[in-house]
């Protein structure tokens, strides 16, 4: 099913006002409902290479594999949809490529990247992430962060040293505990959920969330929900007005219409009540 008319997807990336280069990378395929964002790290262009390599590999792999599967079909062993399995395989492939490239080129040693991948299908999504790039959902006039950062700061919050509010002023913001390309193997966190009409999904790098409060992000998306490009521009402008310390990437996806595949997810819902 072509999702072009069902979901509006748009993305912008900006160097910010402090850095000289943009190490973030974004990419999407509107027809297949694929959205990918990566925030690279590592010296000598390493971050740039890692993030672009990752986005390209993941999109390419998904473009190859997603059209061949039945939307929403579940892998019995893991309980994940086949889309989730495809994403996991794509992330593993990107990890191997970045890791190998870093091993073979001493100047890129230690390069890595965060990643968030969102794949829409059959009125649902699969979402995978590694690191501190995030996915938020705007639904019923509320903004909710649906990924949990792999960062030292999140660990400290989990251990009770900080409240999320106090964490804003911490200096340990930019230490990630998991990244793609650093080790021979990596496991993304994967989740699946149902999509509703008018949902808006935001993928972003920490260049946005470190500088713009969730409340501000909420208000901006609310104000410009009908014009995602304007919403993305406004979010980037706000991050730059607040210091623009890091590269800022913003991707927005709005669900405009139902895109259930033929089998119908409603039928599956009743299935176990009727059994």
């Amino acid at each position, binding site marked *: 099913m072509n999702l072009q008319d069902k979901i509006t997807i748009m993305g912008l990336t900006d160097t910010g006002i402090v850095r000289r280069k943009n190490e973030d990378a974004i990419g999407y395929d509107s027809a297949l409902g694929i959205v990918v964002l990566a925030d690279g790290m590592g010296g000598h262009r390493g971050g740039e290479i890692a993030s672009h390599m990752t986005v390209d590999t993941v999109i390419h792999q998904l473009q190859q594999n997603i059209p061949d599967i039945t939307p929403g079909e579940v892998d019995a062993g893991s*309980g994940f949809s086949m889309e989730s399995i495809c994403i996991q395989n794509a992330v593993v492939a990107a990890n191997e490529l970045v890791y190998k490239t870093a091993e073979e080129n001493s100047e890129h040693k230690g390069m890595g990247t965060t990643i968030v991948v969102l794949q829409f299908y059959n009125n649902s999504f699969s979402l995978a992430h590694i690191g501190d790039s995030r996915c938020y959902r705007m639904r019923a006039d509320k903004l909710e962060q649906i990924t949990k950062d792999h960062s030292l700061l999140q660990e400290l919050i989990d251990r009770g040293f900080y409240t999320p509010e106090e964490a804003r002023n911490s200096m340990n913001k*930019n230490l990630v505990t998991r990244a793609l390309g650093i080790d021979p193997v990596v496991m993304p966190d994967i989740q699946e*959920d149902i999509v509703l009409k008018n949902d808006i999904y935001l993928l972003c790098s920490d260049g946005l969330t470190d500088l713009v409060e969730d409340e501000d992000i909420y208000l901006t998306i609310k104000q410009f929900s009908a014009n995602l490009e304007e919403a993305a521009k406004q979010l980037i402008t706000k991050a730059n007005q607040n210091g623009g310390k890091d590269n800022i990437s913003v991707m927005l996806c709005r669900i405009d219409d139902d895109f259930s595949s033929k089998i119908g997810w409603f039928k599956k819902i009743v299935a176990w009540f009727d059994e």
Partner: protein
Amino acid sequence: MVAKLITTSSTGEKTEFELVNETTTIGRKPGNDIQIDNLSVSGRHAQVITILEDSFLEDLGSTNGTYVNGKLVKKHALENGDNITLGKYQIIYQNSAGSGEQDFEQTMIIRPGEEGMPEEAGGKEIDKSVQKISAAIASEAAATAASPMANREACLQLLSGANAGKELILTKALTTIGQPGVQVAAITRRPQGFFLIHVDGGPNNSVPKVGGSPIGSNAHELKSHDIIEVAGVKMEFYLK
């Protein structure tokens, strides 16, 4: 600039302790990094963990408690000038590095067994001990990531309706429950656990309940033995 704890003795003499190690223990008994000979202080009273330029105070189950600026704390992220009280004894935390505007803007990766930070780590010398504790936390994080709660088997048991007693094992990453046109909810498995999400409230826009209270529009984290009500059917969620 190294952060310090400044103690004042009963005779008014000030002593400074630099927080150079990842852990600094404070207590009455010998063997503590900072020993305070005062009966109101417990044998092992509190510890300060220092990561990069931030320090964290943790009470170790002391008898008289640990206070920061007059407030009882279990765990506390220390800020410059904080007044720490252990029993009848006071300590000042000093960190002239300030916070927020330092050189750690560049994202760095910490990982288990890491021997050094990646290059361009803000151009700063990072203390070995800091690397050690960061790596320790990273390794713990990796360990939790490898065995998430999500690996535990979760079940729903119907408590009311025609199928009362029936059990559904939540083997899928996403399970939808309810009745179309009445109320539909989803249970999604995230790495940190299982979450109930309101999907469709039908004509009355009714919201699923957990423990008798309607959940909001945000994902609601489920605890074992939570009683869920969707589409008028009660069910118990539990982890095996």
